[in-house]
């Protein structure tokens, strides 16, 4: 006697590669201000990104992970989140951070090797960048649990890369989100690569979204280069979380248009032709074309905004470069709320050495 249990995930797209609607657009498309703000954030992110890479190349910044190709989904996430929600990022979420109020200078400090780059003023409850892959997923369910325990109608949104979806942290957290009906949205940013490892080597599953099924959660694939599809799916998932209806997994399909980080050389393992085709699907261009078609944007506006972005980034870079490093004693001062007596001697030693450099 055989019985069948059926499951599904859906996938969503609204715009084709030329910015032409494939379908009726969702209601968010009529919110012109939101769409324009989104586009502007994408361009700002891209401008910042190029500059950070340039700084690294000239020795003025550390290893930096480019967000090229992540601007659309990152922006959609930033817009979908309420200020009172908590964002749990991985390390390629610059577009979202900007909308949360993280400053360009803070981002530069962080990648420039200064811990103060995570002391975000504008979004003090957001979690900092998580370097150990997927570990942040567990924090996300913890934050969501805190909201549920306190009866707060707040939600958590957690990003993780396609590579990260292979790691236990993600899978365990997804499972808890389902078991506990937590107000959390997981966004798996599937940019097709985990450093040199292509998506197909991460999992035999056809989609990443279907990993939701094993946790009893709804899963959606969305074109992460399609702004309207992204906001539509994100808004719905966050509404669900806010309403106490539980968690969602969204797979946002995009492409890592740059190297993994400035320490990487993707030409070693990646086909030039594949990269070229990915540029055809670039979501920033796609939204710009749509805005042009709507008469909401033009070359002049583009030029003005690009100039403004450059100016803002330039200012942030100057402020960043003018920032003195912390004193060496800082390495002990935030370790505990109060320095334990056992460490007093070490702090004295640090304090007594000028900057702690070579003697």
């Amino acid at each position, binding site marked *: 006697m055989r019985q069948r249990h059926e499951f599904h995930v859906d996938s969503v797209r609204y715009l084709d590669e030329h910015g032409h609607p494939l379908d009726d657009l969702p209601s968010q498309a009529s919110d012109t201000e939101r769409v324009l703000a989104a586009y502007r954030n994408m361009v700002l992110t891209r401008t910042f990104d190029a500059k950070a890479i340039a700084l690294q190349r000239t020795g003025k910044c550390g290893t930096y992970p480019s967000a090229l190709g992540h601007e659309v989904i990152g922006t959609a996430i930033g817009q979908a989140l309420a200020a009172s929600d908590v964002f749990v990022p991985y390390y390629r979420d610059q577009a979202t951070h900007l909308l949360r109020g993280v400053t360009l200078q803070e981002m530069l400090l962080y990648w420039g090797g200064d811990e103060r780059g995570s002391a975000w003023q504008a979004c003090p*409850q957001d*979690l900092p960048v998580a370097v150990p892959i997927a570990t942040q*997923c*567990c*924090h996300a369910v913890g934050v969501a649990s*805190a909201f549920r*325990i306190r009866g707060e109608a707040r939600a958590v949104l957690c990003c993780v890369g396609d590579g990260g979806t292979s790691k236990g942290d993600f899978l365990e957290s997804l499972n*808890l989100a389902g078991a506990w009906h937590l107000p959390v949205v997981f966004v798996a940013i599937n940019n097709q690569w985990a450093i040199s490892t292509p998506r197909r080597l991460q999992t035999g599953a056809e989609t990443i979204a279907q990993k939701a099924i094993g946790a009893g959660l709804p899963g959606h694939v969305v074109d992460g280069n399609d702004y309207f599809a992204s906001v539509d799916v994100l808004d719905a998932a966050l509404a669900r979380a806010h309403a106490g209806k539980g968690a969602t997994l969204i797979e946002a399909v995009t492409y890592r248009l740059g190297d993994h980080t400035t320490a990487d050389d993707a030409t070693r393992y990646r086909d030039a032709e594949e990269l070229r085709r990915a540029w055809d699907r670039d979501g920033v261009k796609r939204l710009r074309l749509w805005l042009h078609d709507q008469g909401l944007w033009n070359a002049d506006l583009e030029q003005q905004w690009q100039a403004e972005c450059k100016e803002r980034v330039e200012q942030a870079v100057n402020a960043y470069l003018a920032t003195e490093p912390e004193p060496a004693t800082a390495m002990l001062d935030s370790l505990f709320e109060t320095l334990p007596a056992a460490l007093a001697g070490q702090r004295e030693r640090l304090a007594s050495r000028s900057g702690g450099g070579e003697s």
Partner: protein
Amino acid sequence: MSGPDLRAVTLVEAVNLALHWEMAHDENVVVLGEDIATNGGVFRATVGLKEAFGYKRVMDTPLAENLIAGTAIGMATQGLRPVAEFQFMGFIYAGMEQIVSHAARMRNRTRGRLHCPLVYRAPFGGGIHAPEHHSESTEALFAHIPGLRVVIPSSPQRAYGLLLAAIRNPDPVLFLEPKRIYRAVTQQVDNNGEALPLDTCFTLREGEDVTLITWGACVLETLQAADRLAAQGITCEVIDVATVSPLDRDTLLCSVAKTGRAVIVHEACRNGGVGAEVAASIAEGAFLDLQAPVVRVTGYDTVMPYYRNEQAYLPQVGDIVEAVEQVIAL
């Protein structure tokens, strides 16, 4: 309340008492782990909490230590004070990345913006005839992690007072409970919500001839050894380190300045155990005071044997006595 609420309790009951007290007095305290709610914990440490404070604050989790460790971190960043249980220390390793890379670092990483006021509890140590992995004493792994406190009570009173201190501490604490003495003795505990100080050794017994330094279940054998030695006219100062990291070196050095000799006793294997740090610190800090080498009485450098041979592994009273006689002879 009228008069002190004195109770004769075991170590594990003292843990339970402290949890009850703190959950009643701070609504941010929540408890999570495997089998801790409905079942009250496999050692009964959390019994009654679910009934008293509800399933929202007392949570049975799915079976995943990494998840437990990380979920507690997320909760802690939002102002809760989670007390998460690892059912046995032998199962803590899956949570290692979360503990090392996040719990211990969140405050430093964010320059104080977020922090992790959480407690990880775990029964630890051998001697209870348990299966493999149920007898771990790997406190040294955690003592080496900056940003983490490692606290080990060795009596009902210290379990009560130190656990309260650990929960109230604004930074992460690994609280290791010596399960071999969970029910070994009963002690009067005043259930008054008073914490004991962290980062401080407890001198359990004063003496002149040698300083015995230990923690956890070995405190029992060490005190017994001190008794035996007293009968031979050798007086031992017995120190319960209690917070094995950060280490209260001052108390240890003061004592050795007086006695000139130190014997360290722990159950964990010797190589790279916390005893190494204690010995190195004394050998460096009390160099001129020492009349004999600092000696360690420890477990062997091997996996804790299954229970038929676990007593052969564990430090015995006789081993401690012998070590003291040795250093006294010098």
